[in-house]
């Protein structure tokens, strides 16, 4: 029997053992190949100049992705090798030379690598086509998708994964040469110490996290902490403190809580609670690092995804906030399709220059009657009646933290005139582009005020987000100067979708990958432990614990290991997103909650799978 056929038979016989490993290899290849295919896709780059931006984004993301894949593959490979240590030891015991064993494992890895590469690229091809359609949709374009196989992506993927396979094979060699036969005869573990809680570390962890949360939640423009660490330094400081706090949390606070639970005998001495809590306590120290990594990764994914999803969700609202009219431009009206037209008005406004202590600003002066007319057309039920010498200020870009609130003050003009500001609205009737901040005065005051009189064309269309063609039609008819003052809802919406949509896609793609990887890491980890614990559950069965009770305690333990990092991750991201929404002045509660639910749901599927496998392994021990 040749070595190669031995290796092949090995794979055939242990298929279930290999399945998990091959699956994670295929998974890595699929996501990588999909991602590079999208990067090299011609359809995408032909779409728009903004996709140049996307290409940059994709390139940067593929580096992150690759980094992640390397970690993930190294992890699954070491898990796989650990499982096979006994097999290697057996060969060695039977007198096979290490060199030969190494060669055999190398062959094996080669076969696995080839198989996963072929499967991965095939699957990746189909997946990339599907995802391309989703991406194009998200960016607000019509679907063009044609099936193209990218040679560049193929070469890129094959090259990188060949390198990775070589690396993992070397890892395998290392295991063989380092391993000593005596290891086989040693028991798995000679009684691990049960950890004791350190009060100082537990307190420190709690304080760190509380401080990080407090800083993230406090107003970044008034808070002393933010001023002290500066706007750039504070987020870094918060992240650092939170990561340290998370580690201490899993390392010490968890031990504290579990020990307290165990000591509460009225609870712990009920059924299998004692087993569950002791098992968790027994493992928690060794798991502290992985649990913290998972919590941080989850927090990153949820924050990034939530933020991007929030922006996507708010894209329409922020366009509408700035542009209440479908189209607006300065100058004469032009010919365009009258379908769907709700209103098409010409207004006379005046351009004002106002000097301030620091610089000058341009304002638009609007007649009260025009305001009332437009407000009615736009479906706003506000009607203004402004006294002589007074004004109402409309500022769509008003932000209570940066902008000056003029309410109740006198608004001085260039020529020395001044208006008393009665009210300030953040809802304008003129598009912010070209009009800027608007002063509404009554018709007599308008006439009396000096300023360059300008014609403004405002157009409202039904179904405005879809009126790309009309927008282009109008744009082409305008002079170069007019084009600068032209603002269009469909155009702005499309632009922001193209950017935010691509961000959303890349964000959710990476998020999904992170999620899958964190889920798999927990899965591998728990299953390794399950194998070590087989004997324990066999004892329990012998002393009269039925399968249902065992399933219950297994489900409970796995639930704690799964939910602890998820809950911590969600808590972290809530505070990070709080700072985010403050910075961008957006209400992202709804999209963020949706995102968190989606994330938790996928995580839950992993949980179910893990419990099932854990239980199966434990039952095999009986």
């Amino acid at each position, binding site marked *: 029997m040749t070595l190669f056929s031995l290796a092949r038979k090995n794979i055939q016989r242990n298929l279930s053992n290999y399945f998990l490993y091959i699956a994670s290899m295929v998974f890595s290849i699929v996501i990588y190949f999909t991602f590079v295919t999208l990067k090299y896709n011609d359809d995408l780059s032909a779409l728009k100049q903004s996709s140049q931006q996307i290409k940059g984004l994709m390139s940067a993301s593929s580096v992150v992705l690759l980094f992640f894949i390397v970690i993930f593959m190294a992890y699954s490979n070491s898990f796989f090798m650990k499982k096979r240590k006994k097999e290697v030891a057996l060969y060695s015991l039977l007198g096979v030379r290490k060199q030969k064993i190494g060669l055999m494992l190398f062959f094996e890895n080669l076969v696995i690598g080839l198989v996963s590469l072929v499967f991965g690229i095939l699957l990746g091809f189909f997946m990339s086509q599907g995802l391309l359609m989703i991406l194009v949709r998200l960016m607000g374009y019509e679907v063009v998708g044609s099936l193209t196989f990218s040679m560049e992506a193929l070469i890129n993927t094959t090259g990188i994964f060949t390198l990775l396979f070589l690396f993992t094979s070397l890892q395998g060699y290392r295991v063989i040469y380092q391993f000593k036969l005596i290891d086989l005869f040693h028991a798995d573990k000679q009684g691990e110490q*049960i950890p004791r809680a350190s009060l100082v570390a537990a307190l420190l962890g709690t304080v760190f996290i509380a401080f990080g949360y407090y800083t993230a939640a406090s107003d970044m423009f008034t808070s002393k902490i933010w001023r002290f660490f500066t706007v750039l330094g504070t987020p870094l400081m918060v992240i650092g403190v939170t990561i340290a706090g998370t580690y201490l949390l899993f390392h010490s606070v968890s031990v504290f809580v579990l020990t307290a639970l165990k000591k509460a005998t009225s609870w712990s001495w*009920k*059924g299998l609670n*004692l087993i569950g809590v002791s098992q968790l306590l027994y493992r928690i120290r060794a798991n502290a690092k992985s649990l913290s990594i998972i919590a941080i990764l989850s927090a990153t994914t949820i924050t990034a995804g939530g933020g991007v999803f929030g922006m996507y969700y708010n894209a329409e609202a922020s366009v509408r906030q700035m542009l209440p009219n479908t189209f607006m431009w300065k100058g004469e009206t032009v010919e365009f399709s009258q379908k769907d037209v709700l209103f098409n008005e010409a207004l006379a406004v005046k351009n004002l220059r106002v000097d301030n202590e620091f610089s000058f600003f341009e304002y638009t002066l609007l007649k009260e009657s025009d305001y009332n007319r437009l407000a009615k057309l736009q479906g706003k039920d506000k009607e203004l009646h402004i006294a002589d010498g007074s004004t109402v200020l409309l500022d769509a870009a008003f932000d209570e933290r940066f902008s000056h609130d003029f309410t109740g003050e006198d608004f001085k003009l260039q020529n020395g005139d001044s208006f008393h500001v009665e009210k300030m609205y953040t809802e304008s009737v003129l598009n912010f582009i070209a009009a800027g901040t608007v002063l509404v005065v009554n018709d007599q005051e308008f006439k009396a005020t000096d300023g360059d009189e300008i014609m403004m064309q405002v157009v409202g269309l039904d179904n405005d987000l879809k009126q790309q063609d009309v927008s282009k039609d109008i744009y082409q008819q305008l002079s170069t100067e007019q084009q600068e003052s032209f603002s269009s809802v469909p155009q702005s919406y499309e632009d922001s979708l193209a950017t935010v949509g691509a961000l959303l896609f890349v964000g959710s793609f990476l998020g999904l990958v992170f999620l899958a990887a964190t889920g798999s890491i927990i899965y591998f980890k728990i299953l390794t432990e399950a194998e070590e614990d087989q004997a*324990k559950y066999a004892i329990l069965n012998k*002393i*009269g614990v*039925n399968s249902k009770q065992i399933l219950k305690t297994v489900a409970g333990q796995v639930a704690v290991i799964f939910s602890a990092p998820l809950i911590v991750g969600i808590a972290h991201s809530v505070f990070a997103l709080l700072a985010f929404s403050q910075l961008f002045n957006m209400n992202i509660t709804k999209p963020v909650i949706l995102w968190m639910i989606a994330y938790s749901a996928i995580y839950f599927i992993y949980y179910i799978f893990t419990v099932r496998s854990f239980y199966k392994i434990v039952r095999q021990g009986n």
Partner: protein
Amino acid sequence: MTPLLKVQNVGKTYGKGANTFTALSNISFEVAKGEFVGVMGPSGAGKSTLLNVLATIDTPTTGEIIIEDTNLARMKDAELADFRRDNLGFIFQDYNLLDSLTVRENIVLPLAIAKMPTKAINARVDRIAELFGISELLNKYPYQISGGQKQRTASSRALVTEPKLIFADEPTGALDSKSATDLLESLSDLNQSQAATIMMVTHDAFAASFCQRILFIQDGQLSKEIQRGTLTRKQFFQEILQVLSSIGGGVNDVI
């Protein structure tokens, strides 16, 4: 007096078709309440299989096992687990303690599983620990104590539920002679003072000499049965040795 354990024609066959191997065949005997019964025989005779079958960890291919009024052969897996919990106690050669639990918690475990209130648990644990002389060790972990102490912990765990029947599988197999004697004396005391029914599998004639009655198994069948009666432990020991040499097994194991 009705017997506590009634074994009728129990047989156990492994494998299927032509590859069958008969581990036990046609075994019948009875154990009365309060008896200390030993099972001896050469290795491969089926001692452990018999114990596993009686202890409901394994199921017999044929025959009936009746403990008090319950026929174990007709029970399902989950019912068997509950039955074990409520009626049986186990002592194993390799202790089978859970190393993530303290000595106290290991002993508490079967009571906790049986959902006994905490106060009652404490009282029972303290009493049994005193009986086995491990009161000082209650807050230690298994890796901190010796083999003999571990086995006494395991025995406490088996007995704390006051089971109807205690099964011991080579309980002294991994112990030095001093620890073995201590343990056997504790078991023997318990048997006499509390009328605990014990069934012990061993290949060690010395350990067996603590029993009142010994069943010898050979090639899966019951070959001989001896009673201690009024003999001293030493005399009984000599008798066991004679039987062992006559049936040709276990001679090598004699101390």
